[in-house]
């Protein structure tokens, strides 16, 4: 009796870990919307898609978030080519950018954008918290 119970517990552990169906569409959509807003010069809307900590740290003194994003002139994003979701964190690769996102209670928000890989080290990002 004890053996099946333990196996069930282990199976449940594995299932809860892997998750039944990982939603990759939502972070991809948030990343695409962020770049679409920048392309449309709607920096304020793009700022609304940033995680609060990222948006707070972005501007220099005397600037607001939208002005800071405008100055950065991030390149075009394009379509999502791959999405990795692990727990509450995600990495979205667009044709022209790599973004890192976190899932908050009100949805996916961008923690870092304009990211370039650095061998064996964290990505170097134009926008990050």
């Amino acid at each position, binding site marked *: 009796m004890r*053996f099946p119970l*333990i*196996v069930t517990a*282990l199976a449940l*552990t*594995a299932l*809860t*870990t*892997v998750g039944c169906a990982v939603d990759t569409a939502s972070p991809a959509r948030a990343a695409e919307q962020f770049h679409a807003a920048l392309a449309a010069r709607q920096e304020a809307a793009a700022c609304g898609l940033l*995680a*609060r*900590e990222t948006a707070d740290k972005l501007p220099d003194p005397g600037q607001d978030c939208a002005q800071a994003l405008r100055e950065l002139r991030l390149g075009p994003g394009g379509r999502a080519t791959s999405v*990795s979701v*692990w*727990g*509450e*964190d*995600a*990495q979205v690769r667009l044709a022209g950018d790599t973004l*890192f996102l*976190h899932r*908050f*209670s009100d949805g996916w928000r961008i*923690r*870092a954008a304009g*990211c370039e*890989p650095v061998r064996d*080290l*964290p*990505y170097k*990002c134009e926008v*990050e*918290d």
Partner: protein
Amino acid sequence: MRWLKENSLALAFLVMFLLAVGGQAVAGMLQYNDQQLAQGTEPVSLLKYVASSTFAVDVAENWQSEYLQFFLFIMLTVWLVQKGSPESKEPHKAGAESDEDQQIGRYADADSPAWARVRGIRLWLFSNSLGLVMGTIFLLSWLAQSVAGQAAYNSERLGDLRDPVSWGAYVTSPEFWNRSLQNWQSELLAVLSMVVLSIYLRQRGSPESKPVGAAHTSTGVEG
């Protein structure tokens, strides 16, 4: 009341296990939420934490090492002995022992389990069932650790703005082996301590100890 007394050892461990795993869940959630706030992210509920890969890997890595410990102890004590230890057989009994010693086949008693009286695969399975079950739970727990560990590790890596890793890369990573080996070393030390200390030390009334007056050289005697 009699049933409670006759099963008091298993019940006591079951209650302690539930209290400990519950305490681990609460303490783990509080620690996790502290980190979440420091990173500018949101705290999680107890239910969400218990379903997280962070909790799962912490549970599984301890489970696998405990079951590995018992699996090794069960299997190695078939062939290896320790003179003077109540955890060991007498040196001349090393090995699988005779059918008569093991009360199987025609040597089975009237109250022997049914599969001890038959021959073939059923007897083999029953003869090795304890080791097989412990070994299987160890492997499943270790697999669960690797799956949950990869998820927790990748979540952490994404939080650090790093690429996630594949399962194959995770199970060959220092993170996975550090988690495994740090548990294994403590379990192996505990068994070593039990095997050796029980040669010279006694615990009156415990079947895990030799009788208080037993000689240090007597092996396989439980009090």
